[in-house]
Each structure stands twice: as structure tokens, then as C-alpha cells.
């Protein structure tokens, strides 16, 4: 089943000026995308790239300034209610009522969708099991850890059995272990056929979860494709990372450029990246040039390298 679940053409979001002295701010500057049913789709980019604004428009809580947007075949401008009834939303800030219990948070949310108390109870039991929170059901939300809260937010977003699940920075602020637990849950949802759309500024997250993604920067889409396609197109197979002693990097870069390897060299504040087909061969070449890096690491190219190649900047500063 490969039908379109959401589609945008020339989508723009401009916010009015906050006060008389400031100018209107264009967060999303004319983007096109098509989301297929059943896929996991990612909006990747640094903070301020326009990812969250895009998500808010898809979620029908923020009307587009220009362009066309269709979600579930409907127009958000006229059918916001009907679309939102079929969406699941996981906001970045969890947005749980911390004074209510875990189960009460699901009850309230289920009621917003007009579900009967009995149906909510039934689904809440299943969802708490899915979110590994069954033994926390009666606890107040403010007693939960960050990872538990995020899992509860995901459980809550599933109460209406959504066709499309929107996740805004789902693992930001979580420790590595909590992230892996969350990825596992999201992967299960994907296996069950739920369409996932997520924003992230973590490359590993995008690589783990997304079938397809777009890279956003400054309100525009700068590249799109599967993680493997993007890496193949915008980076080399391997990357050699070299760290030098303080003050020695500039001289090393100079030497490498003069050697004319034909490979792309990127300078980061703490290390240099050598994009090459064969990392070990490149390291041998560096040694042959008389370079003495403090550490040397050969790795596969990642989406981080794609972003760096496209924008000249790293994702997480």
C-alpha cells in the first residue's frame, strides 16, 4: 500500500513580527514533500531550520502562509478537526499534566477524541504495556523520569489509533539508554505499519529510524532521499578523522592540500575530516607525508557528513 498520506507544494510559514521593531520571520521558505503511507520519514536539520514549523503545519495547529498542503487527503484550512482526529502528536516538551496520574493523562486525552471511558480504559491498559509503564499507571506524572514521560507521551498519542504519528525531536534530552528504549518502541510501531514522521537533529536517529528523509537548512530543503542514497551522493564511503596537537592542525591541513590527493578535506575546530574511499590508505598517505596525528579514526560516512557537505556546518554545535 503506497498511497500518499501528506503532500506539500511551495509550503511557506511566515510569523508576524513579535513587536513593532522586529521584522516578520519566515521559518519555512517554499518546500515540497510527499509522505507515503507506511513509511518512516524524517525532517533533519539544525535548530531553527524550520522542521518544527513544518510539523506544526502538518499537525494542523498552524495554518500555512502560502502554498498547498494536503494531509490525509484533506485541507487543513477547512478540515483541521477531522485531520487532527486521525493524527497522533508527540510534542518536544511532552505536554503532560504533571499533577495528574499516568492513567488520568490518557483518560483526558482520550476524551478529547470523544472516546468512551470504557474504550479509553481498554486502550490505556494496552498502551501502558507497550510503553512499559504498567506499574506506574497510578503514579503522578511528576514522579516519572524523562524517558518514562516521553514513552507516556507516545502512548498518549496512540490513544486514537492514528494513521499518522508526528514526533518532534523524540529523543532530545534523553540519556543514551532511554533513547535506545524509545527507538525500539518506535521501530515496533513502524513494523505495525504506523506512518511515522519525525524531526531530529541527531544523525544516528535519522539513520536508525527513517526510510526516507529531507535535510532542511534555513527554511529550505537542501537534499532528500534514503540515508544510504544521501551518503552515497554527498559523501565518500569512508572518513578519516585526524586530531592534532594544539596549534598543529593548520600546518597539517596545508600539507594535505599541497599533496593534492583529490579528496575533500573538512576542517572542524577540534579535528579534520578526510573524505576518502579507503580510510586506511589515506592514513598511510598521511604518515608518508610526515604527519603525526594524536589520534586517527577511520569510520563509515554518516548523515552528519552529508549535512556538513551540504551546508558547511555541523548539526549539533
Amino acid at each position, binding site marked *: 500500500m503506497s498511497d500518499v498520506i501528506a503532500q506539500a507544494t511551495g509550503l511557506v510559514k511566515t*510569523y508576524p513580527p513579535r513587536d513593532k521593531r522586529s521584522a516578520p520571520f519566515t521559518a519555512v521558505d517554499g518546500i515540497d514533500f510527499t509522505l507515503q503511507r507506511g513509511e518512516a520519514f524524517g525532517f533533519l536539520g539544525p535548530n531553527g531550520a524550520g522542521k518544527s514549523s513544518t510539523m506544526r503545519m502538518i*499537525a494542523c*495547529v*498552524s*495554518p500555512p502562509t502560502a502554498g498547498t498542503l494536503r494531509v490525509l487527503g484533506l485541507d487543513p*484550512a*477547512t478540515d*483541521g*478537526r*477531522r485531520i*487532527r*482526529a486521525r*493524527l497522533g*502528536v508527540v*510534542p518536544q*516538551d*511532552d*505536554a*503532560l*499534566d504533571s*499533577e*495528574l496520574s499516568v492513567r*488520568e493523562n490518557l*483518560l*483526558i*486525552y482520550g*476524551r*478529547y*477524541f*470523544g472516546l468512551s471511558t470504557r474504550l479509553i480504559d481498554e486502550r490505556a491498559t494496552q498502551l501502558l504495556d507497550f510503553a512499559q509503564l504498567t506499574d506506574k499507571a497510578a503514579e503522578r506524572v511528576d514522579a516519572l523520569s524523562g524517558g518514562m514521560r516521553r514513552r507516556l507521551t507516545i502512548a498518549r498519542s496512540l490513544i486514537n489509533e492514528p494513521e499518522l504519528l508526528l514526533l518532534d525531536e523524540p529523543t532530545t534530552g534523553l540519556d543514551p539508554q532511554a533513547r535506545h528504549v524509545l527507538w525500539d518502541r518506535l521501530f515496533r510501531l513502524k513494523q505495525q505499519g504506523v506512518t511515522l514522521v519525525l524531526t531530529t537533529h541527531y544523525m544516528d536517529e535519522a539513520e536508525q529510524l527513517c526510510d526516507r528523509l529531507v535535510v532542511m537548512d534555513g527554511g529550505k530543503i537542501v537534499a532528500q532521499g534514503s540515508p544510504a542514497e544521501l551518503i552515497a551522493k554527498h559523501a565518500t564511503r569512508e572518513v578519516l578523522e585526524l586530531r592534532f596537537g594544539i596549534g598543529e592542525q593548520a600546518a597539517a591541513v596545508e600539507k594535505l592540500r599541497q599533496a593534492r590527493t583529490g579528496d575533500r578535506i573538512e576542517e572542524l575546530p577540534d579535528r579534520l575530516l578526510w573524505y576518502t574511499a579507503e580510510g586506511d590508505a589515506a592514513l598511510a598517505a598521511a604518515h608518508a607525508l610526515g604527519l603525526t596525528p594524536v589520534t586517527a579514526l577511520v569510520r563509515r560516512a554518516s548523515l552528519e557528513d552529508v549535512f556538513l557537505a551540504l551546508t558547511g556546518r555541523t548539526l549539533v554545535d
Partner: protein
Amino acid sequence: MTTATASPGMALRFYRYCWLHYRRNWKGTIVISVANPLLFLVAIGAGLGAVVGSHVEALGGVSYLAFFAPGMLAAASMQNGMIESAFPVSYQRMPGRAYPVAVSTPLEPVDVLHGHALFMAVKIAIGAAAFCAVMFAFGVAASPLAVLALPAAVLTGFAFAMPVAAWAVTLPDVRPVQTLFKWVVMPLYLFSGTFFATTQLPEAVQHLVALTPLWHGVELCRTLTLGTATWAGSLTHTAYLTALALVGYVVARRNYHRHLHP
């Protein structure tokens, strides 16, 4: 800008949330909204009233308690209207709180406004009913029309709640709310004829006071309770307060949409 049609059923969903949330928080507000006005009624009305002596001419020939109680009813209702709107609205509209959550479901901003406004009205009514019960137990009512002081007090509270909600939903944080209570609520409370007859003020000030909404609420509640209400007076006060509530509602409807679905 498209504004979706309001749905009463959706509004009730948010109203039910308000009660569930209140069940966790009632201890914090019951003192200020119900107990406080009653303590004032007893301490000022009965206590200070005994010192003032009865049948002072400026009070219209009634005891100080009878003069003060319906004024306090209106003032307490105003305060409840503000307490029910200013803090909760500015709090719940923040990222991660109840408003943004509700408007990401089938609820529209206008439904959230309706549900919350209904909750405010019910809370104002409960406070006013408790106050009326005690006031009538003191034997203050001089006319069967006194029962109308209850809806009059609810209207007074609601006439404040709506414009304040319209304002509070635009606030980036709750700090301006403190300012509102210091610089608007307190002066109105003191100078709108609650504690003393405004005829004791200089004439220029009297005209100014007669423009304030609380003065209309106080006059309406007082004349109904003491049996001195006139058709013209009561209709003017009611029209003024209704207009204020309506204007507040219309602005709130626009502001809720702008700020919750930006």
C-alpha cells in the same frame, strides 16, 4: 484566517478536563475564592459594622452590614472572575500545558475558550452562592428580589473574566498577572463602593467611579438585596456588564485562535 465553527460537545470535553485538574488543585484556591470573602463579611460587616453603628445616612439608612455585604458579594465575584481567568489562562496557554495539548486534538481554540469559560462561570457561581447563603443567614435581604443578587454577582464576575481571559491568552508568561492584581483589582476593590458609599467621594471622583464595571456590579447587587432596585438602574447596570462580557468574549475568541493556532 479561517475560524472553525464552535462545537458544544468539544467544549464540554475541555470543561471536563478543568474539573479533573481542579480536583488536584482545589485546596490552593478554595481559601481565596470562598473562605476569604466570608471572613471579610464577618470581620468587616459584623465586626466593624458594630462600631460604625447602624442607620448612618450616607449608607441609605441601613446597617453597615446590610450595606457592606452585597457590595462585598460583587467585589468577591469580580476577584473570583479574575482569579479564575488570569492565572489559569496565562498558565495553560504556555507550551506543554493544557491549551496547546487540547488544540492538537479535534478541539479548536474556540472550543477550549467555551469549555474554560463555562468552568469559570460555574466556579464564580459556586463562590457567589456560598456568599449569598451566609449573607442571607445574617438576615440582610430586604426584598424577595435579593435572590437575583446571585445571578447579578455571577454576571459581574463573568464580565471581568472574559476580557481578562482575552488578555491572558496573549501573555508570554504569568508576571503581568501580578501587576493586574496590584494595580487594577486592589483599587477597584477599595474605591468602587464596596466598603463605603461613593457619595462620600468628591463629585469628580464619583463620576469616574461610576464608569468602573465593579461599581455597576456593586450597585446592582446592593439595590437588589436591599429592595431599592429600579428598572432603569438595574437594566443599565446589567447592560453595561453584559456588554463588557460580550466584548471580552469576542476579543477572546479572536485571541485564542491567533495564539493557539498561530
